[in-house]
């Protein structure tokens, strides 16, 4: 961009792993931005205008122009700020396709399995949910082995596209363990992912933007209590 200043504004929500991905990407690239915390029960005019189709966070507003969808934003940052550190995506078309594939897998299989487990009410549902999350973690462990080739990250020596995609869940994973008692990246089952997680959260650029795990746990427990109350209320209504 020619001339003075790039104005970057990020609309997010502290507990959103998707918003965290963008914060991480901006942090790794050393880009400064204004952060706006959205109350998703009372969405701001700015959010509704910037993302009229989905009304969701994250939205990155760059010099007034909105970019939506976390991994679309991450690619945009690579392309719009080529001077800001190494790109997250590699340059070879095949390697790019592989990276995009695993980022997509994280959303479609891993995250959706966690959501299903969270929503599980019966013991059968919980067992099925647990099975799915463990299967997805195992597949991702294989992906890490393949992509990293013995190096610390999916991107190799440096943080790459898939590291950012998974990094958004780094705090969430710790909170999930405290709320639901299930370790997602267990050192025995998925040693590479466990090591990756421990390494990732220690990075200065990650620490700079990570949400407070305690706050996430509090929120998770509150949502769990609300869900339990709703289930109880439904059962009571049926019984009466």
């Amino acid at each position, binding site marked *: 961009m020619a001339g003075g200043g790039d104005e970057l504004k990020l609309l997010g929500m502290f507990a959103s792993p998707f918003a965290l991905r963008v914060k991480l990407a901006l942090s790794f690239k050393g880009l400064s931005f204004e952060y706006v915390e959205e109350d998703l029960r009372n969405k701001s005019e700015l959010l509704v205008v910037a993302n009229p*189709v989905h009304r969701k966070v994250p939205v990155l507003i760059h010099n007034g122009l909105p970019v*939506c*969808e976390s991994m679309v*934003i991450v690619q945009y940052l690579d392309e*719009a700020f080529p001077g800001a550190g190494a790109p997250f995506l590699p340059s070879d*078309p*095949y390697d*790019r396709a592989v990276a995009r594939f695993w980022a*997509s897998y994280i959303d479609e299989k891993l995250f959706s399995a966690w959501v299903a487990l969270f929503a599980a009410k019966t013991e059968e549902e919980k067992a099925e949910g647990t099975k799915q999350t463990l299967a997805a973690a195992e597949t991702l462990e294989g992906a890490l082995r393949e992509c990293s080739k013995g190096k610390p990250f999916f991107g190799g020596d440096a943080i790459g596209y898939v590291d950012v995609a998974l990094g958004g869940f780094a705090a969430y994973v710790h909170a999930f363990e405290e709320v639901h008692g299930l370790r997602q990246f267990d050192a025995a089952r998925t040693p590479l992912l466990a090591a990756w997680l421990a390494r990732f959260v220690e990075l200065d650029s990650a620490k700079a933007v990570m949400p407070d795990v305690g706050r996430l746990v509090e929120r998770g427990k509150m949502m769990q209590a609300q869900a339990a109350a709703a289930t109880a209320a439904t059962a009571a209504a049926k019984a009466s």
Partner: protein
Amino acid sequence: MAATEEVTLLDLWASPFGQRCRIALAEKKVEYEYIEQNLADKSELLLRSNPVHKKIPVLLHAGRSICESLLIVEYIDETWPSPSPLLPADDPYARARARFWARYVDDKLFDCQTRLWKLKSGEPAHEQAKEDLVQALTTLEAELGDRDYFGGEAFGFVDVALVPFTAWFHTYEKFGGGVAEELCPRLVAWAHRCKERNSVAMAIADPHKLYDFVLYLKQKFGAK
């Protein structure tokens, strides 16, 4: 450059996702071998090439496999940048918008159409599917606006992503999703414009054949 090495596409005739890849390959004038897959009895080659999802389409190039239709289309665009660049080379913002809208087709339109044929007619969930489909088509209509193509003057990424679904308009109508000419006349005109391109005309399904196929899917996988 591996660009001249053998290209194979594992696909299914009716798949709008596979058609995206066929259109992109044709736009780039890439010769390839098309292998029709039997999803009821998946081939060794398919299972080996897409072990994670076991789905079509899969592009095989220079001995490696690329999965997921939109990723395949970007791969094709990056490996064979000309002719017919599908994403604008120098405009990160336009590229981001294109990726956003291509995903919209997958997340919203495809999801609605699946519910439309799968769910039982008359049930509230089916009514919701109809409403959601109208919403999706209306949104896409508004996004296209007065332009010739989603990217502006040139046929591009979003056009490739969406055009195979236009063969489904007839099916939408049959399942109570409304008449496309009334709901989204600009999209209908845009579909005709796209079909003037050989790449599109050769790839997209015949609407009536497709409807028969969807009836078969409903009988096999639909809610009873």
